[in-house]
């Protein structure tokens, strides 16, 4: 049985698509058969970040409407044989994704893949609800600022009540926190929330802290998931994320500015 992972957030632009691409690539590179699906109908950009935008013929909506079969729509990644991408439709309206249709596609993917990573649009609109409904695991992508944290909290509440697992009284979705665009310098200056502040409010299993990094922009311009940039801080932080998701223990990196100081902040009164 495949595990379905939804990459979600309350607020937009926090780094979901960047994360979906990195996590899918990371899992595939570790030999896990992985499919990554773009649920952001009308705003597709997963294919751009994956660098396969010129190979899109059919999309997710075509499959749901029976206009193409799954194998025709799946794009096999050229860098990693275990990875496939199911792009979103750029033209259809959001209602193209029906719950029944999404369920069938996930079932079929589940026969040949180990992990299905769902890149969700932000918020609680139709596409986001569809992306989270069938999830087994959820990665809640959060930036270290109050509004993002609060929206994540709300998303977690919705995950706990509106998903298939909740409605069928199944074991709840496993929820993970991913902090992205983290800048230790700005945390030290008090301009951003620190890891511990966010953890205190959300009390979730923290998968990784991805630093604010130029490497992300460079990677998406090049159409390479940033996890492939082994030299970069963000690439390494995403590699840690995948390792921890698969159960490895690794110390957290990239929490401190140049040297000293961050933790002393938390321990004063």
């Amino acid at each position, binding site marked *: 049985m495949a595990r379905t992972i939804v990459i979600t957030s309350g607020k937009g632009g926090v780094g979901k698509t960047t994360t979906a691409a990195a996590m899918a690539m990371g899992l595939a590179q570790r030999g896990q058969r992985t499919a990554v699906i773009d649920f952001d109908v009308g705003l597709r950009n997963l294919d751009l970040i994956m660098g396969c935008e010129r190979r899109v013929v059919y999309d997710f909506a075509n499959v749901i409407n029976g206009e193409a079969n799954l194998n025709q729509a799946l794009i096999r990644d050229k860098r990693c044989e275990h990875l496939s991408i199911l792009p979103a439709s750029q033209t259809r309206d959001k209602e193209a994704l029906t719950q029944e249709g999404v369920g069938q596609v996930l079932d079929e993917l589940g026969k040949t893949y180990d992990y299905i990573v769902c890149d969700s649009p932000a918020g609680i609109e139709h596409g986001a609800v569809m992306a989270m409904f069938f999830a087994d695991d959820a990665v809640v992508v959060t930036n270290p600022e109050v509004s993002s944290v*609060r929206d994540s*909290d*709300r998303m*977690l*509440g*919705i995950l*706990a*009540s509106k998903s298939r697992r*909740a409605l069928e*009284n199944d074991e*709840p979705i496993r929820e993970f926190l991913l902090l992205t665009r983290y800048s230790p310098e700005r945390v030290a200056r008090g301009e951003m929330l620190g890891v511990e502040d966010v953890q*205190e*409010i*959300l*009390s979730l299993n923290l998968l990784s802290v991805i630093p604010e990094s130029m490497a992300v922009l460079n990677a998406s311009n090049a159409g390479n998931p940033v996890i492939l940039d082994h030299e970069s801080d963000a690439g390494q932080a995403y590699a840690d994320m995948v390792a921890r998701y698969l159960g490895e223990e690794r110390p957290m990196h990239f929490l401190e500015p140049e040297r000293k100081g961050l933790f002393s902040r938390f321990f004063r009164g």
Partner: protein
Amino acid sequence: MSLTTGVPAKDQPVGDPPASSAPAFELKAAAFIMPVIRLLRLDMDAVEAQLMPKVQQAPAFFQHTPVVIELSALPSEDEEVGFPQLVGLLRGLGMIPVGVRGGGGAQHEAAKAMELAILSDKTKPVKTSVGDDVAPEPAVAAQAIGSPVGVETGSHLIDRPVRSGQRVYAAGGDLTVIAAVNSGAELMADGNIHVYAPLRGRAIAGLRGDTKARIFCSDLQAELVSVAGHYRVSDSIPANLKGCLTQVFLDHDVLRIEPF
């Protein structure tokens, strides 16, 4: 113990559905918690003057909240109630008046003309010692939305964080929470509420009017605390209690918040 009786419906087919069509809805009975505005006088200007400051104290408490207008405390069932003014006033303050309870025939006709439901009077509200005309006295109890809490047993334990937008209600007993209650979340209990983690949302104890109910918590940062309809919002909750064991209780109609 519910006001909205609803229709007991067990998979009752509605007409003869075509063989292929899956059922599109289910008819179910549910009961809801709603604040009740018990009118003591017919002077709507006075109601307006007294209600405004209450709402301004806790606007979020009333925003989009369905409310019931209780007529039983009015001196006479024959006198005309100024429904148009009252409904306009409630809507203007963000509330959604849904129905009336109590009162007599002519009053009911006037209420119907304003699209208000006439709610059954079977369950008398639990009398509280609230001496306040328009305190949001919660009069009806049932399971709240959003959270998987049973209504059968007397007490409830919640061991996962209660998130913004979630509501948990323990009917007929105490509610114990051993994980954080975040800003925007709401706890309600007919009895006491215990929170052994930061309480950042709202806690409403003694929902059905039990003035002996208390709220105990290990880290009070609440947006609102209430016992039997007496409430305080965060502005009037002392800030220096953050991180200490605190209890909230009623002492002769005064809501007290004290460390212990």
